[in-house]
């Protein structure tokens, strides 16, 4: 059979469909330039600067993953710390088996993806608010299981056994690892959204009943995203572990504050856009850098920013900007005609 046609239509010429090729090329070129410039930084600036940027990189990765889950697949998770913690702790395991921490980060995210698959069957029994609470509970359970292993430092955390000895090289390698994880999270999200799966995900986000009735496999789409987001958070967790040469305490790495942080960054930046989490992470990074020393005032400023943005810019910083200007660094829209 040839192409399907709708009955009742004459063979009139149809308008062309574009996907803003020029904007796509421009956006990807710009992104590549930024990434290359960032990759060159260890040769140009003090390791104190790249050390701070490691944090920005994993924040962007975390925010992108939460945006993928909630902004695109409509799953409001408060339990991504399960995978952050697992990423960090599994890195001890693979590192103890002689895998270096950089390759280990890749191994660890693959392992966590495998673990997330059966976990999704548990989590998907819950909807809406129950899903949020349920994922949080799962994270607590994972933490309680992990601290039963003495080899993993039990309740007191532990340090990595095998790291790059030279401190200058180690800092550069850590930074490049963080940069790679960030690039993979953002560009991976973008690639997913441009694919067939991406259109289905956006349909699921807007109305999952209607999506199902139009042939979108809702559960399969959500599961794919859940697993991808778990792998991404595990990679970020491994970066956090490498950056501090270990885990100070399981309560911290499995802490719900990571989820609160992800919510903050994504809401500030703009949920449901690829760019939003990047902007939100940058905003939080700057707030943290300049106000973290101010004690209580720090929390007041962070809270005030969150309230102001949700009141006046419900689409977030990037969402509002994009809506007013029609700009996109990572365009996904289809345009008919012209």
């Amino acid at each position, binding site marked *: 059979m040839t192409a399907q046609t709708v009955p009742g239509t004459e063979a009139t010429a149809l308008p062309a469909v574009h996907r803003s090729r020029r904007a796509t090329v421009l956006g990807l070129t710009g992104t590549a330039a930024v990434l290359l410039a960032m990759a060159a930084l260890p040769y140009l600036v003090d390791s104190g600067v790249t050390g701070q940027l490691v944090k920005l990189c994993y924040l962007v990765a975390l925010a992108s993953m939460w945006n993928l889950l909630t902004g695109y697949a409509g799953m409001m998770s408060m339990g991504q710390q399960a995978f952050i913690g697992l990423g960090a702790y599994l890195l001890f395991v693979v590192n103890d088996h002689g895998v270096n921490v950089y390759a280990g980060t890749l191994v660890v995210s693959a392992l966590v993806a495998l673990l997330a698959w059966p976990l999704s069957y548990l989590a998907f029994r819950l909807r809406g608010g129950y899903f949020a609470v349920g994922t949080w509970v799962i994270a607590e359970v994972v933490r309680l299981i992990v601290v039963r292993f003495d080899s993993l430092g039990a309740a007191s955390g532990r340090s990595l056994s095998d790291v790059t000895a030279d401190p200058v090289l180690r800092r550069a390698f850590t930074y490049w690892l963080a940069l790679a994880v960030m690039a993979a999270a953002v560009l991976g999200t973008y690639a997913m959204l441009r694919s067939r799966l991406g259109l289905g995900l956006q349909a699921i986000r807007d109305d999952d009943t209607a999506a199902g009735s139009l042939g979108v496999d809702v559960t399969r789409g959500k599961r794919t995203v859940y697993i991808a987001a778990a792998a991404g958070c595990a990679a970020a967790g491994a970066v956090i572990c490498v950056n501090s040469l270990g885990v100070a305490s399981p309560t911290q790495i499995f802490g719900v504050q990571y989820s609160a942080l992800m919510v903050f960054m994504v809401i500030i930046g703009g949920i449901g856009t690829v760019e939003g989490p990047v902007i939100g992470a940058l905003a939080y990074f700057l707030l943290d850098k300049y106000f973290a020393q101010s004690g209580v005032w720090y929390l007041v400023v962070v809270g005030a920013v969150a309230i102001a943005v949700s009141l006046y810019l419900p689409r977030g910083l990037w969402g509002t900007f994009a809506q007013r200007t029609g700009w996109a660094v990572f365009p996904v829209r*289809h345009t008919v005609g012209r």
Partner: protein
Amino acid sequence: MTAPLLRVEHLAVSFGELRVLEDVDLAVPKGQAVGIVGPNGAGKSTLLSAVSGVERASAGTVRLAGRDVTRVSAAERCRLGIGRSFQIPRPFVDLTVFENALVGAERGAGLRGGHARELALRSLEVTGLLPLANKSAGALPLLARKRLELARALATAPEVLLLDEIAGGLTEGEAEELVATVLSLKESGLTILWIEHVVKALVQVVDRLVCLASGRIRADGDPHEVLAGAEVAEVYLGGAAA
């Protein structure tokens, strides 16, 4: 005789304690257009939902081309050839009108690339939505949303098309256009189940009329005979009196 394309047997649907459909039997041969009428709350929309897989049957079976699809997901039923519209439109509000249709063409019809885009565009063309293709679906007024329901369902390349009150609120001229569109769909071989209160539009298209009330089929047959029959009069007068 070949088996009917769509066959519903002893179908029942309940919402908790509430029995909304009971013992519904309906066999629709390929190419037939069936109209469904009945008072509000009769269970008409629920019947479409049970056929399309949005609601689960609590008893009975739904068969498509002889295959039992009662336990099959809505998405799979769509891919097997059941396309539907929703009475209260459910557009993907942050996608464009074109992208709404593209979801159906890619996922429901299983097409890729240019083929999917072409089918999506054709379905917008038939429903007169092509000029609005780049509009955000969330910004559409109600009537355009209803047309988008039809367009999306067509974009899934269905064999059975389920329509739920798509003519309400149309002007005389618009209703005539809609009738012409649905007629041409029927002539091309589509099997149609159409719920409609605008009986005047309905009878111009359908070969057969089913009257549903309180979850049961009260009359089923030639449209004019059903409309003239005692059951319909009773059902509607009963409905008006309630």
